[in-house]
């Protein structure tokens, strides 16, 4: 593992990944990869998650194409140095912030959206000029294999390498030194990744999880709310980090919500859900069994059917859920939707604030004031009001968590910034040394006063004022020189 990382580091040191033209070339190759090998990619995702190819396309591929197009368009702007506001002392100098690559980036993917959760960060890392080591999740085996097969065929093989393997290989990998690690996965493993990163002082972006609450106000269009919630909850069989995890609402709304979600599920997947090509399966037996255990002792309003042979769990809704029970203790990550009754919005806010900050917060209401209040009184990675999931799809919004749901963010320009070092640069000339006399010892009170003047004075309006001050500065410097003698 050490040699592998060293090879990638040497490739980065060669400087090959830095020129804009090279980055564009690699990104264009990535785009071609996605378009030309679409069939293979979709087949792999479909095999891993029992997902229809249409779903795989709209869940994963669309996002990647959108992202690479955005980056290709904006990259020339992003890589240029940004001049900054100067003060009196730096008036004649070149002052700017230059984005630079960090070096070797490690991207660890997750199994639930196995392709996009590798590709989207990869696009950002390449755009920022880094070399990248990619570690797909071993649980989504087929996608891991296809990534290992396809990436070397389209991208520079020394700069971008796929490493496959399980816990053992990942642990070995984490012992190595990287310049940034982006990890998507569970909170528990997030801590392990950060602890490993601490040994090398490697900055990290952690995209973790949590229980994303969904508050339904009595003043809302319940039909629409339930349809949208059902869409976000049951897509990918509930295995989405920003799926609405549980519902909070007044007790009187429960039965209506149950009814409407039930109808929606029928609309989406038909009478025989098992036969619908649009309904996915649970990734493996361990998670399947875990999810079934969450149903124990619960009031199942509808759903609850399961089939171990195919790892099928029906879209399920639970009512009158006790917050102390297991289903409310861990991120569900499955097609089970608990409804926890609360008295009102205040109680909902308190309920949410008593718990870890979630990755997403959802609130459904026609009342704008209430929506704002819910946002103002809570914290979360992101928020979508009157819908679910959608804040993920706007690349001008940063996507990331807070507290135990993660740290850092990416998507669009945020990816580029995450994988760059923003280096402040101040370029002076060796001339004008006499003006510097003010700052050299031996010091005096008058020098102190002048120093304060230059440091604290705002950049005054009008170029004439500036010129005057500059002249004053030089005059003062000359005076000091004269006085010295």
């Amino acid at each position: 593992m050490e040699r592998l990382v060293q090879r990638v580091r040497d490739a980065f040191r060669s400087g090959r990944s830095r020129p804009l033209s090279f980055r564009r070339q690699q990104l264009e190759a990535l785009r071609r990869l996605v378009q030309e090998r679409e069939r293979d990619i979709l087949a792999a995702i479909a095999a891993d998650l029992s997902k229809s190819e249409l779903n795989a396309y709209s869940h994963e591929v669309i996002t990647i194409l959108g992202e690479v197009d955005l980056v290709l368009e904006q990259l020339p702007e992003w890589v240029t140095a940004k001049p900054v506001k100067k003060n009196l002392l730096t008036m004649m100098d070149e002052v700017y912030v230059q984005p630079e690559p960090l070096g070797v980036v490690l991207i660890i993917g997750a199994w639930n959206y196995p392709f996009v959760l590798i590709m989207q960060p990869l696009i950002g890392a390449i755009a920022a000029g880094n070399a990248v080591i990619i570690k797909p999740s071993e649980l989504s085996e087929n996608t891991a294999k296809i990534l290992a097969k396809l990436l070397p065929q389209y991208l520079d093989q020394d700069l971008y390498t796929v490493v496959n393997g399980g816990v053992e290989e990942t642990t070995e990998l984490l012992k190595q030194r990287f310049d940034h690690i982006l990890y998507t996965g569970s909170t528990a493993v997030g801590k392990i990744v950060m602890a490993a990163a601490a040994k090398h002082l490697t900055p990290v972006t952690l995209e973790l999880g949590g229980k994303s609450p969904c508050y339904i106000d009595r003043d809302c269009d319940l039909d629409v709310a339930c349809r949208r919630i059902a869409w976000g909850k049951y897509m990918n069989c509930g295995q989405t980090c920003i799926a609405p995890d549980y519902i909070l609402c007044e007790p009187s709304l429960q039965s209506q919500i149950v009814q409407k979600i039930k109808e929606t599920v029928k609309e989406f997947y038909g009478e025989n859900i098992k036969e619908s090509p649009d309904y996915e399966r649970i990734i493996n037996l361990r998670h399947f069994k875990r999810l079934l255990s969450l149903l124990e002792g619960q009031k199942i309003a509808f759903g609850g059917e399961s089939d171990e042979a195919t790892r099928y769990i029906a879209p399920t809704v639970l009512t009158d859920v006790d917050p102390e029970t297991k289903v409310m203790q861990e991120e569900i990550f499955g097609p089970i939707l608990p409804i926890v009754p609360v008295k009102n919005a205040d109680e909902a806010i308190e309920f949410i604030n008593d718990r870890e900050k979630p990755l997403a917060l959802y609130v459904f209401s026609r009342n704008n004031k209430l929506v704002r209040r819910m946002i103002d009184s809570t914290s979360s990675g992101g928020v979508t009001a009157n819908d679910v999931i959608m804040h993920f799809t706007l690349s001008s919004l940063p996507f990331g968590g807070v507290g135990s749901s993660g740290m850092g963010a990416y998507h669009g320009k945020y990816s580029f910034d995450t994988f760059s070092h923003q280096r402040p640069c101040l370029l002076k000339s060796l001339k004008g040394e006499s003006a510097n006399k003010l700052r050299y010892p031996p010091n005096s009170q008058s020098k102190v006063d002048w120093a304060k003047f230059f440091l604290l004075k705002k950049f005054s309006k009008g170029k004439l004022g500036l010129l005057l001050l500059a002249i004053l500065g030089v005059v003062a410097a000359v005076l000091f020189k004269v006085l010295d003698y």
Partner: protein
Amino acid sequence: MDPFEDTLQRLREAFREGRTRSAEFRAAQLKGLDRFLREHKQQLQEALLQDLRKSAFEAELSELSISHAEINLALRNLRAWMKDEKVPRNLATQLDSAFVRKEPFGVVLIIAPWNYPLNLILVPLVGAIAAGNCVMLKPSEVSKNTEKILVEMLPRYLDRSCFAVVLGGPEETGQLLEHKFDYIFFTGSTRVGKIVMAAAAQHLTPVTLELGGKNPCYVDDDCDPQTVANRVALFRYFNAGQTCVAPDYVLCSPAMQERLVPALQAAITRFYGEDPRASPDLGRIISDKHFQRLRGLLGCGRVAVGGQSEESDRYIAPTVLVDVQETEPVMQEEIFGPILPIVTVSSLDEAVDFINRREKPLALYAFSRRSQQVVKQVLARTSSGGFCGNDGFMHLILASLPFGGVGASGMGSYHGKFSFDTFSHHRACLLRRPGLEKMYSVRYPPYSPRSLRVLLLAMETRGCSCTLL
């Protein structure tokens, strides 16, 4: 008995109650901070003199004025910074409200070092307050006199339910780090930086680490040696060299070394007189431990200028060492003292290789008349927290530049608006309408190629040659 739990609990509750949220509250705290600096100016100068023999000039420039400037900047811009930032929308979200909300993290821990004990605790504090957090401050116990004022006086100027100053040495700091904070801001050594990050990892606490390193200073043959010597000497011997961004060592050709050494001697004499020990403008080493450490380094290479030391007042003369080998101790650790080693290289390439072989420094300096060929070359071929061409750490005083390290010199940055952003969670918000459901139904199952086509259009995915269509 955990001395911090109660205080922490108090801060957490105050945050939860929302006390720090309003702009008025934050502004009031910042104004309190400003008053603290004004009303205790003399005491603070006295304390800095006792801790580091810091002259009034240095105290004004590097501790007081900078803190005032940051407070004023924050007060002027607070409301603008706090505003929700609207973002561009795509076709699918055209009718929605999309913005980034800046939120406080909660309870922030700021750990400060002893070399600029006021600046390095107050400037981060300004950012944390402006961003709406509650803060626990841990000043350095090494700069004892300044610590005393911070512990006894500062809390009187801030809302005590939201801000606390705690005391302690390494052991207490270790205890402190076992607690859960919502953000940790640490300035100090690389070694302790790792400990802080490891502790933060246990609670998934995000961190900003302002660490250190050996800041290289490349001096090209084509330059005026006296000008270069003035600038290098000023920034090397400021605060008796105890500055994280001070030029740590010089890289130049043997010919340049010949010209630089007498120029450095001239600069030192001009700044501090024939007997630097008598100059009120030269600081002292903070502690016996560091004094002994630095005294040991005086044996490396050959002393070309200075080299004297006096234990009784922890004085080390402004020193220049030549004939220094890469393997010697003075080139192995961050010097953090008034000693400037010169390492000779035969070319720009060799200098760049030398720099790149080592850890990324906090600052990098290059001096040359030939800006394009030399200065910009060094800049382009290396990495560092920040960079200054033809001067010392001037880039620090501009609040419009982010100040921070990279690699072993740190992560994250601050100053000015960067402080506010560092201490804020940037929350993505998308507020949609309950209506227009027909438009959105294209995304619902059962799926078809047609619905996919419409989706692609809405998400503005161009030139898609999707085989599914």
